[in-house]
């Protein structure tokens, strides 16, 4: 895997989003209940938005991209790995999705240190921030649910 060119990184990021869309769509198909299906499909829709954003990336978009501080609740960071099991409870679905965003963010963070050019670095930082936003949304949903239950 080479990230020498700007377009290499964009292609990779789009592929990762495509994989995420496929993962959530297949998980949805494996669920018996409409509500769980809808939850997974909603996640797939979010990934589609990312995919569309990444497909249209060019150096100018990245150059104008505004970075801001995205809070990291780190709810998933200390959890063990998990996998999709049809019928898994809602909180486990959230944990699964949070963990996926955590890995994606960490991957892009690691890549920042691996590439040389400023343009490539900024692109990876942008991808990391986009994953951070998703992670925060999911971790907030999870934290709200858990807070109510006494966690």
């Amino acid at each position: 895997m080479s990230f020498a060119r700007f377009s290499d990184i964009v292609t990779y990021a789009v592929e990762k989003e495509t994989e995420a869309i496929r993962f959530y769509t297949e998980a949805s198909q494996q669920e018996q209940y409409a509500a769980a299906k809808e939850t997974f499909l909603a996640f797939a829709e979010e990934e589609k938005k990312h995919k569309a954003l990444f497909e249209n990336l060019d150096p100018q978009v990245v150059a104008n991209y505004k970075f801001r501080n995205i809070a990291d609740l780190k709810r998933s960071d200390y959890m063990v790995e998990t996998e999709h099991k049809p019928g898994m409870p809602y909180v486990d679905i959230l944990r699964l999705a949070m963990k996926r965003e955590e890995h994606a963010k960490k991957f892009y963070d690691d890549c920042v240190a691996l590439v040389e050019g400023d343009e490539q670095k900024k692109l990876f930082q942008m991808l990391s921030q986009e994953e951070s936003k998703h992670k925060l949304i999911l971790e907030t949903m999870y934290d709200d649910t858990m807070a109510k239950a006494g966690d």
Partner: protein
Amino acid sequence: MMSEEKQIKDAPKPKPKRPKIPRQPMPEQDAHARAKNFDSVTLGYTMEQAVTEATRCIQCKKPLCVPGCPVAIDIPGFIQLVKDKEFLKAAQLVKQTNLLPAVCGRVCPQEEQCEAVCVLGKKQDPVAIGRLERYVADYEAEHGEIPLPELPSKTGKKIAVVGAGPGGLTVAGDLIQQGHDVTIFEALHKAGGVLVYGIPEFRLPKAIVEREVEYLQRLGVELKLNHVIGKIRTIDQLMQEDGYDAVFIGSGAGLPWFMDIPGENLNGVFSANEYLTRNNLMKAFDFPAYDTPIKKFKNVAVIGGGNVAMDSVRSALRLGADNAYIIYRRGREEMPARTEEIDHAEHEGVKFKNLTAPVRVLGNDEGWVTGLECLQMELGEPDASGRRRPIPIKGSEFVLEMDAVVIAIGTSANPLIAQTTPDLALNRKGYIEVENETTGRTSKKGVFAGGDIVTGSATVILAMGAGRNAANAIQDYLQTGEWWSSNGSAEN
């Protein structure tokens, strides 16, 4: 112009102020002594205290406390009877709307319901409605039973109630009094649901629950214990083969959540459900009189800040722990547990580690817990909702020596009934979807649901309120045969 003297003479005389009577404190076992036994923590009012407290009620013409109660007890009415020392009549009045007054008097969060809206509470402490409710229920238990109500002639309709928790018991009590045949199917070997497996003896003596269940049986409710619906019979079988005209599902939310952190599978890690069930339902605290062992742990960490966590940690102390900790990731003010329970735990010697999150359970070569690695948390910046969420402080890891960890961070619905009833719609969180909480109608004709299986873990009285609503809707359904389709129109 009137002289100053005249003005003073004609001014209305101020009414003599009735001396403010302070809210009567609840007598309790000494904190040090009770931390070592499973006897009731609170001892109940004396008659004198009950009457004194009752005189504090100002008998509002439009009382707010009644709509503040999920089952709408005639609160001013029964309190007046306490004031008049008509305790049995008071109990009778309460029982007209609340089947389990001795239970609710002990475990309901009155401070969030009826007492929260008591007018007296604006300037002083509200009337101790819960304590008075408990007093009249206990008085009735001690001094004579309320005669059974006269039941109407049989309707020939059969109702199945799945789960003998507070919601199911309420439905059964209401519908048996409408002349229907009611059968409760309970998965465990005792009726009461969370009242018997979840709430410890020191907060709710089990004899009280047994008495209330016996009352229902005397009314004619049939109780089938050890009946796991979804395994022994399905909902469809109950309706199509066993002839039940309607089913109420009140099976609770008994599937515990874990933290998904490393080490959670070590020996000495319990879900609060298991820990409390061993102790409360299976009486492990009374081993060997009861044949359920429970290891005596020296250092016990209970994760969570709800009532279940408080019950677990206080049980750990009573089972002989030298140190019993609450480990909670947020601040004390965010704990969902009742203030009274938190205070009791503190007075008994429970150690609180707030803003602390467990990240790993440590163990030895034999697979037993030896410690709990935690992180110190701090509150982050307010988010869009204004909430300051806890976030870990980098490098703040520390280890607490432990030999048991009890996880009390919530539960979800047991999926058994849903898995065996494919046409029962569930919501996003896996709970049974109902038309609304005032009817409890599910997506399946003739099937109703209420309590934790609909709302997720909540309070006893809310489950009872849902049971009351569902019972009314079942009665309506049995009389009219009308059902509601998902688009809101009636169908037959």
